């Protein structure tokens, strides 16, 4: 049988893949994709806990699923704004590489 811990480990590994992508990759679009992976990993562990905590009527705890709904909504808004910034930046500098964008570097 599948245990709760299996879902949590899979979710942790997915989060780590996303985290490594944000740290290592230098293309802003790939960094945004890795951010999506991290948000999805959080959603997976929330849904696993929702299924684990069965309430008195025998239904899963729907509060976590409402929270996942909010996460998906905010992620959609975040990607839209992030990609608009990338397009504006590309129009100005013709690059999506973070190492070419060091104007604010101290």
């Amino acid at each position: 049988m599948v245990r709760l811990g299996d879902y949590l480990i899979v979710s942790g590994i997915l989060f780590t893949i996303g985290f490594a992508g944000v740290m290592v990759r230098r293309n802003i679009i790939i960094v945004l994709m890795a951010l999506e992976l991290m948000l999805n990993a959080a959603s997976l562990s929330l849904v696993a806990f929702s299924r684990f905590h069965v309430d008195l009527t025998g239904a899963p705890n729907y509060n976590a699923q409402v929270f996942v709904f909010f996460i998906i909504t905010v992620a959609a808004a975040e990607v839209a704004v992030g990609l608009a910034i990338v397009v504006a930046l590309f129009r100005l500098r013709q690059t999506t590489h973070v190492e070419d964008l060091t104007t604010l570097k101290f």
Partner: protein
Amino acid sequence: MSAFLFWTSALLMLVFGAAVIINRNPVASALSLVVSFLALATLFISLNAYFIGIIQVLVYAGAIMVLFLFIIMLLDLRAEKLRNINWIASAGGIAVALAFIIQIFAVVGRLSIANQTFPPLARSTSDDVHQIGLLLFTNYNLPFQIIGIVILVATVGVIMLSRRESR
């Protein structure tokens, strides 16, 4: 949910998630991300969260991925040339990620409930759209309205950002 199906979807999700950050071609990364999201949707459905699984497919694999592919093709990004990689920064990033995964394993290993299997459900969850909608309009009414404002602000912000300067 059989263990075989769970491990198949989990492996598919992790392999294609790793492919997202390994591929040099952005289009290949975006398509790997679609497969990863679809496998994640099957995991949601395996947890009896049908509504979340469906909006995962619709919003992520549908809307967000089309947006990513549209931007990649609009900007005409080719596969990156092999730059001289900043080895110290990459090694630091991978070391932090490894430390993080070790912590995850340690915490989940000590968690007593992690070894328990999922308790059976007393009733069907095919009405979960009804249940989630009920919660959204009662307990979570204010956050729901705030989310609406967030989306409105994002829409206006995107239009402002992508407008050409007309000065």
